[in-house]
């Protein structure tokens, strides 16, 4: 069941990615109904599979959960912001993450797990949701910079035609950061709660990475909200934040290799 639903989701996300990328290859843009309908069908199948992966033990289930949130954001961006170009990043990312999860092996470890209380599961879910929001902020920022470059350099090609307006991308970036920060904050607080109130032992790497994500996202939100950064500067801040979180994760993962734990 888990494998099949993930395989179906993989196929549908791949199809959604093809639909998003088709206009960049000179083909006619797909109808909006398809741009929304195909990933939604994938999300339904994926959601059924992810529900069976609770309590998200190991790297593969966590990657699958992240892929699910990215696909959800792809649909939400298209529905609310008419930003189908977000799918240029989220489509391959979600497809790749599910593919990777399938390769690693999705079946949860049969051995009993200490500390997988509902609070712990909530902590993981909310933290991954925050990470996905940081990724969405990065994607909006990257699209912003590409469109900015096209407009400044007067290149009226596919980026100009197919990407959303600059202001809309800036709003998407702003929204993902502003909603993402409280989400990550809640995830971090739940993590501390699980550790101290629940008495669960947590690796130092998890604490370091969680705090780093919170600080970096806090900084990105701070420069936008407090210092009123917007446009290109805010886009660079988002990209730097996401890159820092990703690089630190990879570095920490190198110190504790293996697929049994996310960190």
């Amino acid at each position, binding site marked *: 069941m888990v494998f099949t639903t993930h395989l179906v989701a993989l196929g549908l996300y791949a199809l959604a990615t093809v639909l998003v990328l088709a206009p960049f290859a000179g083909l*006619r843009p797909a109808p909006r109904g398809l741009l929304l309908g195909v990933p939604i069908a994938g999300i339904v199948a994926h959601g059924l599979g992810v529900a069976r992966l609770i309590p998200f033990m190991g790297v593969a289930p966590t990657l699958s959960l992240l892929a699910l949130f990215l696909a959800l954001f792809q649909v939400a961006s298209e529905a609310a912001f008419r930003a189908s170009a977000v799918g240029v990043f989220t489509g391959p990312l979600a497809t790749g993450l599910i593919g990777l999860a399938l390769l690693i092996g999705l079946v949860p470890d049969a051995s009993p797990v200490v500390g997988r209380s509902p609070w712990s599961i909530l902590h993981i879910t909310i933290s991954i949701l925050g990470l996905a929001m940081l990724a969405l902020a990065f994607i909006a920022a990257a699209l912003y910079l590409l*469109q900015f470059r096209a*407009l*400044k350099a*007067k290149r*009226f*090609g596919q980026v*100009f*035609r197919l*990407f959303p*307006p*600059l*202001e*809309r991308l800036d*709003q998407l970036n702003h929204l993902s950061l502003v909603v993402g920060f409280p989400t990550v904050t809640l995830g971090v607080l739940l993590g501390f709660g699980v550790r101290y109130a629940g008495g669960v032992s947590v690796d130092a790497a998890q604490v370091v990475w969680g705090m780093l994500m919170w600080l970096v996202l806090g900084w990105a939100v701070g420069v936008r909200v407090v210092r*009123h*950064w*917007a*446009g*290109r*500067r805010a886009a660079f801040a988002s990209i730097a934040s996401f890159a820092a979180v990703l690089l630190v994760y990879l570095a920490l993962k190198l110190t504790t290799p293996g697929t049994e734990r996310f960190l």
Partner: protein
Amino acid sequence: MSITVLGVNHRTAPLEVRERFAHTAGEVPQSLARVLAAGARGGVLLSTCNRTEFYLAEPEDAVPEAVWTLLSERLGVGRSASEYGYIQRDRDAVRHLYRVSAGLDSMILGEPQIQGQVRDAWDVSKAQAGPVLHRLFQSALLVGARVRSETGLATGAASAPSAAVAVAGKIFTQLAGRSALILGAGDIAELAATCLVSEGVRVTLVANRTYERAKAIAEELGARALTLDEAWDHFGDCDIVLSSTAAPHAVVTWDRVAPAIGRRGGRPLCILDLAVPRDVEPAVAQLENVFLYDLDDLQAVAAHAAAERRDDIPAAERIVTEEVERFWGWYGGLAVVPVLREFRERLEAVRAAELERTLRRLPHLSAEDRAQIEYFSQALLNKFLHQPTVALKEAARAGRGYGLLDALKRLFGLERRDGT
């Protein structure tokens, strides 16, 4: 039975001539009445800045002359409208209207305004159009809509003013409610301003070297008038600047506008420089979040869109051909019944006359013999009529009825109107 289009367009007549032929909505009924009086069963006059065309149902031979005379009167003494004009008949006339409605015959390929202009022409001429042209214009609007939805002929911005809107639309989430400052009073700027206003942009300020001219335009657009020197400070608060002064050198310089732009706090500013020579110093584009486009840039956007639209011409032409055949099938079928009735009545009259003459020469025949002869003549006529009737109905069903009908009318001299 025929459909004819007579007129001039941007390919056959210069602007100076087209301007004179252009009809206001109020003038259309009168001009159509004059043409219809020369002998036609229905007419629609399509008049835009790029074309003036009379679509006529069943025009008699004198009608083209009536159209050219009417148009020549607008040209003045010694000039004939026919030298700028064209005539297309039947299928070609239907194809012409369908191509016009689809934007295939427009100066800017695929431009969307023509669809509304065709609808307006039909509305204004409704009382004089007649059933065939009603159907023709109704179908033309559907063809236009079909081409626009099934092909990419209407995508992108294919003119400089619409490119200005497209470029601004790639900077701002929505144009409605944005404020615009207009510098100068050039025609292109006014046209581009109209395009922006139609998207909901508010022209709040108009600046010109002469304050009086600025005031006149500002009053038209509901804006405030300024002198050029007063305008520089407003680069800090408006969203779009449209510049089209007649200055021989750049008037919007870094020194003049950089301080105001610096106060924008990163909000984007779109500057559309439509003047030749350019009004805006290129260095202004180096300012953060300033997006500067001149006429060449906008024409590049338009050319890009136009090139993409050209790729869709074959698909659009296929739709037009398909719809012409569909209409012609209906039109051919429409005429078969009355012409067949006319044909039968004509032969029946011949049979009755010949029977009467024959019977007059044979007075000795009994009533029974006379009935036999009458029966024979009727049967012979029915036999003769059977095959042409079947062939015509089949041809009409296949959309090929018009050619046979025309031959029939010519061979048997069927001049009576068929009521279509």
